């Protein structure tokens, strides 16, 4: 089965249709919406597999299908679809993970009154995300990119009655929009200098050698495009929205954090990789490294189940960016794929826990769930080990190793490697802490005590994802298949000191796991109120990390204040500045009128008064001639006529 590029639009179109169906369905038609969404995504999955087959058949061919959106007087705005291995793999991943998440959601959202809308939004989200992936035009990509933002806004704010959810949704949208504006500017710049936004267009596309050479590699363009990725993928300094986005329902978190939205930034960078200059890559690499470290650090001190996972996502995305920055975008994509599966697994597992524990997600209140929730625990543990990078069996290990190796091979600086290694330790540590606090020990609260295993509709996806988290190792081992598929040219990098680095990293993982076990696993916490062992040892550091390194406060104190000041200034300028000027003008006009009137009364009118008085006197004198006798007048006229005739006749006036 294979799919031609002309039909590629079907992949995003199917979920879009499902979204429309969901939107039009009557209120409460939960089953209809869910069925439509799942069916559409199943169809999209099948089509994606077809696309993958197409791509595998000819890995190097960029099968594009372009069309004109609308004409302008000069030229036209053109869009297009593209099949290449990157697109196809992403499609399969997104549809597959998405499908599992959809299925999971049918269980998770069963009791929500607005579940129908939820599926509508989910479908919209999936459609937009697939649109981003299959786009062969940066403009189309941007359009879908924004729609992804809209869908995430709707989904994060799904429980909009909660003020926190509403605020988080707005924060997510605005923050990502800051990045999007950079992306937009980058797009405009590209359009202006290259004259097109199509990626592949039979030799005239952006990513094709002719145009690339013409562009001459502008660092600024690359950085502007990266701005978009920073916003979307939650990179430092715009990562602050991501943890807040946990206010949405858990499947949303899974969808946004694991599979799709946050990956969009990485995907974008991988997609436009040829456009990036070494300088730009350096910036990307350092941003990624810093993000990886910060995310991991903050994750260590969080108590919210999902928030820990969120910061872990930030950290992992940092890894991916780091990989791109050091030039190995294949490693980034590999990690993106593996991370998508195991992070989705973790989030869905967390969702299962939360669902079971009646929406209790503070790990201090949980505990002891291993007994009642066996399947969840088992799958969650697999996910945790994949994320922590437990060697050999789990896919996360391989993808992380790929990144570390690439970083090691980077010629510019070794600093990112060290931060990456530090993050490895921290990752293993906080994941251990999470599992130990949640599943081990005794239940520490009423909901946790009464927790029970979730229904099959939720556990089956977990199991499938767990299997994938393991099986995806095959992509890299025993043969670097993915590398060969995506970027054969870079596949021949040397593994000279590969073994040494691998050993170091395994040791570091063990260190992280051990430290976590020592602190949390060995002697689980008794009561929910008891202090965190880490907090007991370094209270100030823990508090700082727990407050997310005070980023929100910092932003509020700087950018927030600046924005507020600008708003106040703009408003005051209107109310007092310009309006005041207008009022002054009005007052001036009134004053002029006053002066004018006085001058008229006293100066100009005096002469007129005198003249009129004399005229009136004259008139009175003349009016005596009016006798009021009409006959007299007539008589006079007649006589006058006769006299006139005689005058004319004899006066010689003729």
């Amino acid at each position, binding site marked *: 089965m294979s799919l031609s590029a002309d039909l590629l639009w079907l992949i995003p179109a199917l979920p879009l249709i499902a979204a429309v169906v969901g939107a039009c369905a009557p209120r409460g038609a939960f089953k209809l919406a869910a069925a439509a969404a799942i069916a559409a995504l199943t169809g999209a999955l099948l089509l994606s597999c077809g696309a993958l087959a197409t791509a595998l058949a000819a890995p190097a061919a960029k099968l594009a299908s372009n069309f004109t959106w609308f004409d*302008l*007087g000069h030229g036209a705005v053109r869009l297009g679809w593209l099949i290449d291995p990157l697109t196809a793999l992403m499609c399969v991943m997104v549809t597959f993970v998405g499908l599992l998440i959809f299925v999971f959601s049918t269980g998770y959202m069963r009791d929500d009154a607005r579940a129908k809308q939820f599926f509508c939004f989910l479908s919209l989200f999936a459609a937009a995300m697939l649109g981003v992936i299959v786009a062969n035009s940066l403009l189309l990509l941007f359009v879908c990119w924004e729609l992804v933002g809209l869908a995430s806004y709707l989904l994060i704010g799904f429980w909009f009655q909660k*003020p926190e959810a509403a605020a988080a*949704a707005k924060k997510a949208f605005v923050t990502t929009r800051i990045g999007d504006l950079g992306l937009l500017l980058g797009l405009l*710049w590209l*359009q202006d200098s290259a004259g097109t936004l199509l990626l592949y267009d039979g030799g005239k596309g952006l990513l094709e050698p002719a145009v690339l050479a013409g562009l001459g590699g502008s660092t600024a363009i690359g950085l502007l495009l990266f701005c978009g990725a920073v916003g979307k993928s939650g990179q430092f300094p715009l990562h602050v929205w991501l943890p807040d986005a946990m206010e949405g329902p858990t499947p949303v978190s899974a969808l946004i954090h694991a599979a799709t939205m946050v990956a969009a930034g990485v995907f974008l960078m991988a997609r436009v990789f040829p456009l990036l200059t070494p300088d730009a890559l350096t910036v990307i690499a350092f941003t990624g490294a810093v993000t990886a470290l910060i995310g991991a650090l903050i994750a260590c001190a969080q108590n919210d189940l999902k928030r820990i996972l969120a910061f872990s996502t930030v950290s992992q995305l940092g890894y991916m960016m780091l990989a791109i920055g050091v030039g190995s975008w294949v490693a980034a994509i590999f990690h993106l794929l593996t991370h998508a599966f195991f992070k989705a697994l973790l989030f869905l597992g967390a969702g299962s826990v939360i669902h079971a524990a009646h929406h209790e997600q503070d790990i201090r209140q949980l505990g002891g769930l291993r007994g009642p929730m066996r399947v969840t625990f088992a799958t969650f543990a697999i996910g945790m080990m994949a994320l922590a990078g437990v060697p050999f069996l789990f896919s996360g290990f391989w993808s992380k190793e790929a990144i570390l190796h690439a970083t090691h091979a980077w010629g510019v600086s070794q600093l990112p490697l060290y931060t990456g290694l530090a993050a490895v330790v921290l990752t293993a540590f906080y994941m251990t802490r999470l599992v130990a606090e949640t599943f081990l020990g005794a239940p520490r609260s009423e909901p946790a005590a009464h927790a029970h295993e979730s229904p099959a509709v939720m556990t089956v996806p977990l199991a499938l994802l767990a299997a994938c988290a393991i099986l995806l190792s095959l992509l890299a081992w025993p043969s670097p298949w993915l590398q060969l598929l995506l970027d054969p040219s870079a596949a021949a990098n040397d593994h000279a000191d590969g073994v040494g680095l691998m050993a170091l990293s395994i040791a570091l993982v063990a260190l992280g796991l051990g430290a976590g076990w020592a602190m949390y696993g060995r002697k689980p916490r008794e009561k929910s109120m008891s202090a965190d062992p880490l907090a007991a040892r370094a209270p100030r550091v823990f508090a700082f990390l727990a407050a997310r390194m005070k980023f929100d406060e910092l932003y509020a104190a700087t950018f927030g204040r600046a924005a507020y000041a600008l708003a106040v200034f703009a408003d005051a300028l*209107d109310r007092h500045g*310009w309006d005041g000027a207008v009022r002054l003008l009005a007052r001036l006009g009134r004053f002029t009128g006053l002066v004018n009137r006085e001058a008229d009364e006293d100066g100009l009118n005096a002469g007129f008064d005198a003249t009129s008085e004399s005229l009136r006197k004259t008139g009175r004198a003349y009016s005596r001639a009016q006798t009021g006798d009409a006959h007299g007048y007539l008589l006079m006229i007649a006589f006058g006529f006769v006299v006139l005739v005689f005058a004319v006749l004899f006066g010689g006036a003729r």
Partner: protein
Amino acid sequence: MNKLPLLSLLVFAPWAGAAVLASLRGAGLRASRVVALTSSLSTLVLAALVLGSFEPARTAPQFVERHAWIAALNVHYHLGLDGLSLVLVVLTGIIAPAALLASWSVGRPRLFGVLFLTLQGSALGVFLALDFVHWFLFWELSLVPAFFLIKLWGGPGATRAAYQFVIYTIGGSAFMLVGFAAMFATTGSLDFQQLAQHGADGSLAAKLGAGGMRLVFLGVLLGLAVKAPLWPLHTWQAPAYAEAPTGASMFLSAVLAKMGVYGFLRILWPIFPQQLHDAAPCLLALALGGIVLGAWAALRQTDLKRMIAYSSLNHVGYCLLALFAVTFAAGRPGLTGEAATAALAGTILQMFNHGLSAAALFCCVGVLESRAGGRRGLHDFGGVRTAAPLFAGLCGVALFSSLGLPGLNGFVGEFLIFRGVFGLSPASAAVACLGLLGTAMFLLTFWQRVFHGPRAGAAAGEFADARGTDLAVLVPLAALMLALGVAPHLLLQFINPLVTAWAGHLVLP
């Protein structure tokens, strides 16, 4: 004479409706409303007729009607329609009935209808006139009904707002009148096309002298800038829009504000290309001021209507920005038409788009206001989406269209404008991005405060969902937004040749 004088019909049909309505003394409320709405719909019907026989490829005005009027002053009754006018006429045709529907339950509907129809006819007259005298006549005539609409049906500060609106605008147009008088004195013509011809071949400048030409330009500019409005001449706008009744706000922001931009495109640019080019850096700065400061000032407003008014300033700013960028770059060596056409097409599209979204937003605020018994503060609501999901959805469409979300109409216009402006003046585009950010912030604040969160304020109690007239206004508008967002060539096909021609003879070196 074998053809129907469609354009005259377009202009005078609303007036005829107004006359009929005015003479229907003692008509029932419902009858008055229906008559007003029917007459107002005439524009849409006639616009459809015009669309049917419009030839997009011809850039010269079509359906021209030219009759001698005041022979002594060389004044003609001269109507014509090109792509630009067409777009605005269609916009008027859509917005006017919508605005009347939105004001369905207003008191004294007969008087309201009469004034409104007069306003509608005047606006159409402005969009179709090709001779200064009756263009100006309609231009000024539109103030009278607007004044009364604001004053009689407006809120507590309406009287002040109405006076401010009228005096401000008349003040501006006085300068414009003087400017045209000077031009008439030198050329003896008041026909736009002839004046443009004079402006293009330099004979106007030769007769007026450089200084005189500049003064005339400034006068005309002032008149148009007040109407558009161009920052910082916009201070009449927020109070006027805020105090006007819903229908009037819709029409004022959606159609009347376009008269200013239309004037820029129809009059100022063709007649004074050189002067505009010289002044462009300064004007660009002002347009940017409007875009950025308008958006941020909106963030500070607590009155929802004022907020939308400022968003109007911001959105109209994009139109002006594009135009000024085009004139700024005019004649630059090596310029291709692509950026200029994109910017100009974007301008016209944006005019239409903003008309739709501003009208829809004002309508939404009007619905909120009526449900809340006259309150329309940002803090008077909460959780409306829970109470009225359908209404929230429709309002959301308008909001996101205004915000420039792809897939809705706002995006296409703004993208084209940015695409053009970036090619002509990249720094301006970069600064204007701040405006986009501000827009997103204040619109989402609006959305979050009013629609999200727990039900509070006016939405805490009984709060009806959208129904009847609300739906009749909002659903077609939302549908249009979606349609234009997906298929912008529905509109662009009518203006592309025109814009290309403009770029050809006014921009390229």
